[in-house]
């Protein structure tokens, strides 16, 4: 099948700055691989039902390959199954679907591992001991539980030197994040030594909060590449951030979908990683960026993308 017939839809879970790079990635992939389309289509809200509707509609519109950030690791499975049943291959992108699933594989950040690594970095910065507060996202997102567990695991490994004293969740919206994080710091700032954030908005709000109280004693590791977080790292209020690779996900994912449509198969013995949700996981790269790395974080992500892309086909796909 010719590449022009491949029409990829890149569908995030809702409007969110994280996915902005997917648009560019799709356009680049379309040009580079001569695809019929690689369009970035977003649901209007972070609602599982809205995403489902959008996906169903895109299928009726003739899209035949999907990169999907699953609105829910379990709940999105039936829609994904419907897509594949109608001949459109799906790659779970940026977040994974829980097995069993009809998605080809999951290309994204191992959320648990990223949180774990971030916490390790934080503990290192704290000098191996102290108390940690963990700020995370929607409680109903099973990833949140994975992150809570991962942070807990990293702390446990210190044999009691580090303790997670507080977990605050459901602060993915700016208003509650402001209120809860500030309230927490107001009451307990001197009882914590480190903060780990595992969602975008909490990372932004916590960076600002630390800047506001001017406290450089409390160490913090954030997530993602929001300007506020990056600037706080440069100014020394935040220790570093766990970067993910949205561009790479979109670019490589589009490429893989086209290959699959042109007859390639996913190698059954490919070196997939196993994570809590799935045993067909491909890490799109997660790196820790500290003060020295923030300025050229784009370059480092591109390097990772290039590296994964270079032998992606040979590693994961078997083509006729």
């Amino acid at each position, binding site marked *: 099948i010719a590449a022009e017939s491949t029409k990829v839809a890149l569908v995030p879970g809702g409007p969110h700055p994280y996915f902005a790079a997917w648009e560019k990635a799709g356009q680049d992939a379309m040009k580079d691989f001569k695809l019929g389309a690689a369009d970035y289509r*977003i649901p209007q809200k972070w*609602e*599982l039902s809205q995403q489902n509707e959008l996906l*169903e509609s895109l299928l*009726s519109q003739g899209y035949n390959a999907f990169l999907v950030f699953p609105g829910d690791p379990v*709940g999105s499975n039936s829609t994904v199954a419907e897509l594949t049943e109608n001949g459109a291959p799906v790659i779970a992108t940026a977040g994974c679907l829980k097995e069993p699933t009809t998605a080809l594989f999951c290309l994204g950040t191992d959320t648990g591992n990223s949180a774990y690594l971030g916490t390790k970095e934080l503990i290192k910065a704290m000098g191996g001991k102290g108390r940690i507060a963990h700020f995370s996202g929607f*409680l*109903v997102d099973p990833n949140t539980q994975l992150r809570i567990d991962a942070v807990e695991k990293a702390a446990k490994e210190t044999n009691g030197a580090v303790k997670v004293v507080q977990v605050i969740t459901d602060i993915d919206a700016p208003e509650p994040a402001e209120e809860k994080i500030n309230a927490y710091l107001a009451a307990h700032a001197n009882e914590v030594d480190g903060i780990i954030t595992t969602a975008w908005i909490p990372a932004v709000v916590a960076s600002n909060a630390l800047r506001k109280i001017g406290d450089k004693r409390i160490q913090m590791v954030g997530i993602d590449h929001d300007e506020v977080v990056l600037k706080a790292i440069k100014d020394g209020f935040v220790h570093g951030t766990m970067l993910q690779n949205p561009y790479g996900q979109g670019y490589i994912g589009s490429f893989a979908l086209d290959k699959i449509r042109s007859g390639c198969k996913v190698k059954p013995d490919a070196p997939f990683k196993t994570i809590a949700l799935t045993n067909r996981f491909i890490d799109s790269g997660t790196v820790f960026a500290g003060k020295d790395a923030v300025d050229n974080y784009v370059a480092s992500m591109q390097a990772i993308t290039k590296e994964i892309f270079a032998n992606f086909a040979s590693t994961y796909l078997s083509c006729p």
Partner: protein
Amino acid sequence: MASPTPTELDPSSELDAVADRGPLLSRESQTLRFLLSNEFGLIVLIAIFAGVFSLFTPGFTSPFNQFTLGRTMAIDIMIGFSMMVVIVTGGLNLSVGAIGVCAAIGFGWLVETLGLPLPMALLGALALGATLGTVNGILIVRSGLHSFIITLATMSIFFGVMVFLTHAEAFRIIPPEMSAFGKMRILSYVSPLLLISIAVGVLLTCLYRLTPLGREMLAAGAKAAAAELSGVRIGRTFVICHSLSGVLAAIAATMVVARNGAAIPSMAGGLGQDWLLPAVLGPVLGGTLLTGGRVSVFGTFLGSAFVTTLTNGLLQFRVGEFWLQTWLGGLLLLAVLIDLARRRYLARGGRRMA
């Protein structure tokens, strides 16, 4: 066309002579009433928009799209019903989503953990919905507070307890017949879920038209003081409305489970809030009064159907992805304006007829 003028009803001057003069309802005014109704307006709007969409987008009429449209519609209609039965009382049930999620998770737990057979588990889910609804109703009636604030609190409580017990874990091992039902296509166009919604709609219509209980619900919702002085047990009636709301939310939830093939805590968003919009939109567009006392089951059905059709069509139209909401809102406004124009036009005509 002559509608009866008051003079025709003039009784004879003798006190006891009750002349038998046939029904007081005239056919003409019934026709006019229907043409002026919300229901007719929505039918017209759905026809207009569906027509435009099928003309200008290739995907809209495809069997798959019609099937998914019907399926989405079915769920939204049921959610609309579960709010509608409470709006009748002049109140709101903010916890429809939370009750729905609880019922879905309860269902998942019954089939997966307890291994109950499907019908038993379904009944269990409905019973759970009814119980939570009853709790709402009793709290509202006993405290005398507005249902808005009570259900705001219970929304937190129901959902919180559910998340606390499950730690946001989903139940996946549900009977295959259930997921097959969610994917089933009758004549390749129709989802059986839609038939369920239609059936429930018919039952609700019978409730309001043909039973004292339904009439009492409307009377109590329209003017509690007057209804009470006519012997309606207001408190009990309101509690029953809320229980019914719980049951309907549970039905909607099991439909979502069938559609998703799993019972997941995030199916209605945080605290179940994602259900609020479809829940209120259908009844309000359908002519159910937010102040209570007037209901239109068919209108709710059409209202929800209209919104899902509009959304679906717009997605097909591929308006600039970030601008979709603007379009949706704009078209909704356009639709109500068209409807208003229709009503003004007909009303003027109706007056001329009189």
